[in-house]
């Protein structure tokens, strides 16, 4: 998912300044990886070059960050096409926990791997309580609730994996040792 499409989405309801877009992004996607203002400006430049946005006017005072941008009809087409497109399920599942368990088995042995998994489980459960508090707080926005749901389901999947991994640690270690 490119930032360009996200910015187009945020421009769909009307023109905005670059800085305003960054603020909108932070508000709409509170738990997403933060973006830097420079990324926003660079992406806007690219959208401008591709004819997907057009300058909508400059405030008194001028300066690069005071230009507002509007979505062009071509931008709208691009946004609609992107929204309708299914995201490819990731082919490579990055699982830093598995890497650590595998190496713990190699370097430190079964007990260390099991101990690590137990502590990781406790940390995951603590994080799940935090997200649940966020989610059930009546002041949390819909975007916040959606993000918390996503995080909770992923942490839950990790936990199931951790339980299976604990049960597998012994046989894994047999496989890994020459």
């Amino acid at each position, binding site marked *: 998912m490119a930032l360009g499409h996200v910015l187009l989405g945020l421009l769909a309801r009307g023109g905005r300044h670059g800085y305003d877009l960054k603020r909108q992004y932070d508000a709409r996607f509170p738990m997403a990886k933060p973006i830097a203002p420079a990324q926003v400006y660079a992406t806007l430049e690219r959208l401008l070059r591709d004819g997907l946005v057009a300058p909508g006017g400059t405030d008194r005072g001028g300066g690069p960050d005071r230009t507002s941008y509007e979505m062009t009809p071509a931008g709208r087409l691009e946004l609609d096409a992107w929204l309708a497109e299914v995201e490819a399920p990731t082919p490579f599942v990055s699982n830093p926990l598995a890497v650590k368990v595998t190496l713990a088995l190699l370097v430190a042995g079964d007990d260390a791997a099991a101990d690590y998994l137990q502590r990781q489980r406790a940390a995951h459960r603590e994080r799940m309580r935090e997200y649940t508090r966020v989610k*059930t707080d009546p002041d949390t926005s819909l975007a916040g609730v959606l993000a918390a749901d996503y995080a909770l389901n992923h942490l839950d999947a990790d936990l199931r994996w951790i339980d299976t991994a604990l049960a597998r640690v*012994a046989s894994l270690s047999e496989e890994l040792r020459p």
Partner: protein
Amino acid sequence: MTSPPDDTGTDEGLLLAGRALVRSYGHSPALRGISVGTRRGEILAITGPSGSGKSTLLLCLAGILRPDAGEVRFDGRRIDTDSEAERSRLRRTRFGVLFQFGQLVPELTAAENVAMPLLLAGVKRRPALTAAGTWLERFEVADLATHRPTEMSGGQAQRVAMARALVTEPEVLFADEPTGALDTLAGEQVLTELVRVTRQAGMTVLMVTHDAKVAAYADREIVIRDGMADDGAPTSALRGALGRAGAR
């Protein structure tokens, strides 16, 4: 994460505490010396694999089953040695229970089911039914007031059972799998409501669940494995497997 009940013999600050509980069914042990304690107003989740002893633990703490050894204290008093009549009175007046199976009386309507604990406590029929109506509303099943359990979905019956468990505004709620798995938005809403209502009332909740997403609603969680607190040591199955690996 888990602070165990203190071992000084006073259980100070704990509203409810089980100490070194042992309980077997015939010759098979279900609880093997587990200790657990909870403070007033706390929501405690009890998790662990199927057959680990979660329900047995809850039944012992709620005074429904008597442990073979160990003790249960509530509000500074030992209750596991109480007579059946005393324990049953405690359950009627200060405890609310919400169990996995066979909760609603099939011959009664939802409203009558919810009103039942109040009627048993001597409340008149009309105010009892009014209170029942309020609780059914809280769990968004007011429109089922005149329905019998056979005319409800599993989730709806669970909400009615929840209303019945809370209608006496107990000090401690014992809930075994209160929402089943949290795979529906409806289940999540019921749980959110349960937590909201019990927190507002300052109730203490002991909630058994196998679902980490349900457990995440609690303030604290204890994990039980093979009838003992899971303190992070390898399980017996794992120990066995490790033993084999080591013996090679």
